[in-house]
């Protein structure tokens, strides 16, 4: 151990002694009243209170963090659930607010009933050709008919009516009953249109698929959708006919019928007259037993009631649409023969049909006879069958 090391060691010892002495002196001074220095009690309380407040607010911070994290997701979920609920409740309470595709289900279901279609088709095949006599004056009135009323509602009802009608056509398509264009108006030279009117009862059944001629004799005829729209407008007008002021639309109907008939006369084509009469003679359930035009529209009771008045006013002879005049029936007969489907329809009238059934019996085709009888019964449930047809031998 050299002298330097001893010197350093002594120096460190002295330093430690000095440090201890200074430290002791400082502690004495600190602990004495003279050197006492402490924070005031108020400051202590304030600091401790702040510390405790901070701790108690801790859980709130955690909760707010959780809420902040999940608030967007919860909001989105709530909006989705509420929206779906509102939509379902709305559809349940107000079916008319549902989309058109949903609304069209009910009418289509009604229209697809086979019996309804068949019965309506019967009307079209058994009808004579009511071609009312008209005058030129009536034709002029028909040309002036405004179509604004029909256009008002056309857009509103077009879609659902089209859906219903197309469905009916699909169901009723057969070789004898091809889907025909919409009821036609025989105002070839004019745009005045009077659509077929569907009485409410008939509308619920739905219009029947009508047999169309092989060649369309009325190139200017309106489309089915347009005719349907016009039908709606006409229905509105008819709803007002209970009041005296509503007589005008009825007269207009008759004039249109007269116009169609007049055109048929002018063209010399009886089919045109038939079509014109049909186009203004809507089908009605009440007149289902009455033979109607091939187009399939029976005259409405309204037309029947107002027909004499219209005749008196216009001076034209307007035959009741449901009562085919013999002269017009004779005129329409060649037209029926010209049209292939019309001839097919003729076969299902009770008389010829019974004849055919008798022929089948004589030929011994009992199986076919039974099938035809079933069909005949469906079409003509009120016709009394001859005994030869009721007493069929047993077996095939």
């Amino acid at each position: 151990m050299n002298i330097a090391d001893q010197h350093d060691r002594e120096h460190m010892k002295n330093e430690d002694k000095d440090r201890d002495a200074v430290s002791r002196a400082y502690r004495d001074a600190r602990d004495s009243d003279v050197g006492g220095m402490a924070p005031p009690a108020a400051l202590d309380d304030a600091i401790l209170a702040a510390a405790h407040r901070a701790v108690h607010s801790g859980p709130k911070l955690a909760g707010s963090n959780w809420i902040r994290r999940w608030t967007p997701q919860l909001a989105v979920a709530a909006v989705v659930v509420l929206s779906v609920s509102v939509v379902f409740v709305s559809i349940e309470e107000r079916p008319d607010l549902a989309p058109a595709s949903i609304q069209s289900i009910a009418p289509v279901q009604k229209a697809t009933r086979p019996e309804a279609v068949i019965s309506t088709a019967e009307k079209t095949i058994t009808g004579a050709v009511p071609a009312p006599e008209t005058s030129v004056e009536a034709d002029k009135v028909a040309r002036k008919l405004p179509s604004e009323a029909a256009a008002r509602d056309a857009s509103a009802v077009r879609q659902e009516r089209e859906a219903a009608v197309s469905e009916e056509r699909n169901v009723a398509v057969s070789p004898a009953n091809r889907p025909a264009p919409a009821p036609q108006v025989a105002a070839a030279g004019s745009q005045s249109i009077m659509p077929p009117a569907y009485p409410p009862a008939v509308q619920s059944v739905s219009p029947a698929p009508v047999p169309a001629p092989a060649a369309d004799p009325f190139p200017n005829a309106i489309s089915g959708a347009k005719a349907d729209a016009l039908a709606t407008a006409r229905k509105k007008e008819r709803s007002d006919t209970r009041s005296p002021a509503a007589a005008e639309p009825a007269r207009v109907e008759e004039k249109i019928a007269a116009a169609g008939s007049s055109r048929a006369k002018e063209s010399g084509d009886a089919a045109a007259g038939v079509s014109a009469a049909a186009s203004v003679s809507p089908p009605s359930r009440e007149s289902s037993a009455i033979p109607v035009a091939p187009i399939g529209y029976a005259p409405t009771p309204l037309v029947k009631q107002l027909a004499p008045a219209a005749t008196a006013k216009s001076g034209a002879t307007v035959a009741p649409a449901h009562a085919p005049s013999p002269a017009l029936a004779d005129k329409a007969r060649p037209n029926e023969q010209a049209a292939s489907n019309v001839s097919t329809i003729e076969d299902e009238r009770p008389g010829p049909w019974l004849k055919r059934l008798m022929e089948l019996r004589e030929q011994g085709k009992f199986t076919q006879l039974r099938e035809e009888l079933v069909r005949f019964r469906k079409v003509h449930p009120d016709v009394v069958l001859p005994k030869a047809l009721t007493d069929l031998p047993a077996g095939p």
Partner: protein
Amino acid sequence: MSASEQSTDEDLMLRYQAGDAGAFDLLYARHRGGLFRFIGRQCRTREHAEELFQEVWMNLIQARERYRVEAQFRTYLFTLAHNKLMDYFRRHGRVELTLYEKGDAEGEENAIDRLAGSRVDEPLVRAESAQQSAAILRAIESLPAPQRETFLLHEEGGMSLEEIAVTTGCTMEAAKSRLRYAVAKLRDGLKEYA
């Protein structure tokens, strides 16, 4: 002595961080005197000392979520106090700040000359009546700020040289030098009472 009182400062701070307000009470009781003296002996007035003292504790409360046990709690606490003091010196344009920015040896004597007797007239110092106590306190107050802080950290915080270096942001050699100078000057100031 209960289990809580035997817990270390770090455990108490962690418990307070977890929501135990009682742990903070213990921590505060342990360090309130030393911290207040550490701050009070470096401030001109008691009002400033109380203000800084409250700010230090409030900072500790607000920063409890970020507290990690990376050093001793007292180092953490006195570092907060050191930073507050630096802000205080800067805000009041005190010469002590220049001593921290200059080297330890440079201007040491001048600072002592400038500071000597400057705080004797303050009310806080005037209240100390005992001669020796007054003498050593006067000597402490006359020390250059870095030496005074180092001495106070050693005495009030019970820190080692390494901890002092960490708290004040200097090297360990600088801390050792500052402490040695401080003790030597205080010893000289106590000679007449020895």
